[in-house]
């Protein structure tokens, strides 16, 4: 296994094969969720000013990408590129969504655009016909039943459950096939719900298995730590407290953190996993990886904020913007993006080399404290010999308790 830095060609290739662009089309929201990552519990994002992205901003970005997409040949004949609308609440900027959809549907470009959206569903009743007509993929935020949804309140403090539930039911009844194929749910776990409660509710009401996420654990304001700790629930702990933990774990499969950890362990340490046929031709000693578990810029997606900042993901601090869209056009210097990224990698390289978990690292460098500062950053995911032995043993113990997972993971799983 050889560490390598990235070069601007890698980033260019990522742009050429770009899988997803997520636009924060507004920072306005019609809900005021208590735990919101853009709320008063967190820092690390641009001030929320109820701004709305313009069509011109988006058009400039596409014109920049069209040059790349028409100049070189992508790895797939007709690549799928997800165009994702994000907020705030994206349905508040529906005119822009419609303009973008119309614009892309009239481009003669060798791409298959797939539209998607993360929404709180408050305005879903107004726009569902359009979303269905254009085959949107929806990720609806719903934390469970009324009590579970109680942190997701509107501006006046009213629980949004009744409105959201009613809208989702209308969608389910009017467009059952669309609902089955294109709609998923995300539930945030906190101290007013549980893994079991969420799973039961979603199964009973919508016949769905939601993704369940924990509260964002980075960027918490020091004076809000107490509030955070009171609200936060660990997914694993909640799962273990379930009355029927085993059954729920089976249903969750890779959404069970232990099974997901096992997958990472098996894929990286069994010696039996290969990404593609080409990987079979490379000796493990010669296999090159970039240190840390960070995606290379635009390797998975591109995120554009309402202020025109270009980032590699919506989860990371806005101060790590890689470029921007201004009136003059897209400013994205691939050499400077490369230099910055490699600078961070260099800062971590010594720790990465001695880390026993380097092969299955999931640590994003943008979440390592002090990574952009002069001080020496310390990786929170670092594992020495003892920690790694414990980690490996816990994965194998879990496998021994659930031996059927070995064949299932090795034979059936296809990672996105």
């Amino acid at each position, binding site marked *: 296994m050889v560490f390598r830095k990235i070069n601007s060609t890698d980033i260019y*290739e990522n742009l050429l*094969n770009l899988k997803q662009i997520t636009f924060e089309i507004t920072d306005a929201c019609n809900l005021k969720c208590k735990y919101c990552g853009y709320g008063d519990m967190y820092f690390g994002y641009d001030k929320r000013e109820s701004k709305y992205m313009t069509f011109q901003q988006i058009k400039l970005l596409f014109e920049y990408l069209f040059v790349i997409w028409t100049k*070189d*040949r*992508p*790895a*797939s*004949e*007709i*690549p*799928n590129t997800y165009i994702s609308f994000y907020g705030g609440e994206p349905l508040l900027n529906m005119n822009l969504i419609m303009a973008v959809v119309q614009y892309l549907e009239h481009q003669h470009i060798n791409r298959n655009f797939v539209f998607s959206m993360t929404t709180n569903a408050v305005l879903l009743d107004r726009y569902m016909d359009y979303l269905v007509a254009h085959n949107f993929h929806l990720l609806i935020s719903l934390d469970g039943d009324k009590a579970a949804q109680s942190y997701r309140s509107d501006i006046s403090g009213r629980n949004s459950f009744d409105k959201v539930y009613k809208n989702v039911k209308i969608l389910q009844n009017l467009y059952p096939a669309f609902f089955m194929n294109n709609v998923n749910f995300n539930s945030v776990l906190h101290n007013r719900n549980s893994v079991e409660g969420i799973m039961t509710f979603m199964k009973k009401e919508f016949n769905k298995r939601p993704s369940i996420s924990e509260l964002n654990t980075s960027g918490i304001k020091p004076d809000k730590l107490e509030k955070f700790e009171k609200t936060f629930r660990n997914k694993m702990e909640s799962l273990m407290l379930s009355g029927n933990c085993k059954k729920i774990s089976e249903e969750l499969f890779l959404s069970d953190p232990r099974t997901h950890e096992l997958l990472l362990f*098996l*894929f990286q340490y*069994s*010696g*039996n*996993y*290969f*990404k*593609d*046929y*080409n*990987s*079979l*031709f490379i*000796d*493990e000693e010669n296999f090159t990886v970039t240190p840390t578990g960070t995606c290379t810029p635009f390797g998975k997606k591109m995120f554009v904020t309402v202020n025109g900042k270009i980032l590699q993901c919506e989860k990371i601090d806005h101060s790590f913007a890689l470029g921007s869209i201004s009136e003059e056009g897209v400013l994205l210097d691939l050499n400077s993006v490369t230099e910055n990224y490699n600078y961070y990698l260099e800062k971590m390289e010594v720790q990465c080399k001695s880390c026993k978990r380097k092969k299955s690292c999931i640590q994003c460098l943008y979440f390592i404290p002090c990574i952009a500062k002069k001080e020496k950053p310390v990786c929170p995911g670092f594992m020495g010999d003892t920690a790694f032995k414990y980690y490996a043993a816990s994965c*194998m*113990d879990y*496998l*021994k308790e659930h*031996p*059927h997972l*070995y*064949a299932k*993971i*090795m*034979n059936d799983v*296809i*990672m*996105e």
Partner: protein
Amino acid sequence: MKQVLTLFPDTFLWLKASAGLLYNAKTFISDGFNNTPVLKSLCSALLFVDNLYSIEIEPENLTAEETEFVDLIIRKKYGFITDHLEKAYSLPPILSIQNDIKKLENSPSKSFDENLLKYLTTLTIYTGGRFPGPSYYRQTYYPFHSESRLEDSEILNFFDHIHSRYIKKINIVFSHIESTNFLISLSGKLKAAAPKVVYYCHVRELSDNITSILTLLDVTTILICEYEPAALTALRDFLEYHKGQHPFEFNFLIRSQTEYNYWEHLVSQYEIKLYKYIPIYDNNYAFFNRFVFLNEEDITNTTLSKRIVFAHQAVNINFFGELILLPDGLVFSNVNKPPVGYMQDSPYDLIKNELHKNYAWRVIRDQEPCSECVYQWLCPSPGQYELILGKNNLCTIK
């Protein structure tokens, strides 16, 4: 007392009708055994995936045959035995390829077509032109005889058309070399397009002018050396002139032991370092049977890592990733099979055709008699000789 027998994760255990084989891909040791009903039962339990390569045994209740087998496993380090049940598990070598074609074809969320272009890593172009002689191009890189030849503009157009960032190597196999301009104009453009460019020239085509041009170009030149008078004279002249410093590499074609002896003498006499011996089938079955076919000892002496064994199970390591253009404009994944398309077709279509039809890239030893043999995955991937000889195996075992 109950104990647990566990195989190491680098140990392969293969069972066929009447035979079995243990192979440790770390120590490269292998042992065959008779797949008797008693051992079959024990091995089947070990191979049941959910058992994680482990079975409970009571040594005092084992038959003599089982005891001997368990002793073999421990003695030759194919596995271990322990009293501690909690330590008894291992990861059987199940190959998992994330973007496996069959997996993708059955997936509702992923497409078979994704990232296809990454698989095309080598392009081979036969320029064609006059080169009367045998059709050895069906076995190895060798000049292709045709009345017309591809012009350099056609080659470059083809390359522009099929070009991708993932092509790592371009082979150009020349027939008769009429002009050196051809060599020069191609090399500059091809070098900019792929990290490695290899020119294959028959030694008979060498002239002082061609040699000096090839020496100056930033490409690898491989001389195809054939045991026939004109070629031998040309080769001797070349070697005398470049004594002690050979700018090129050599492929020595071998059809008989006499030829082998001759090349071996030449290699030693002129201290040639970069060379390969390439057996050629030309109605010389006895030679092949004696010197090319593998016997059991050859196979058990192989030192294959787990990765290479997996590669044998999934792809053809001789052919994977290569497309070949012949002078008539047809494109092949294997020149002994039907074409996968024309030079005008898109690279995606050419790759898709090959992946669907599987003429070469994923041709593995899954046909009889290999599929009935315990050495199935230790043997090299099938090559051209099997097709030329019309038999699926190239060994003396079955």
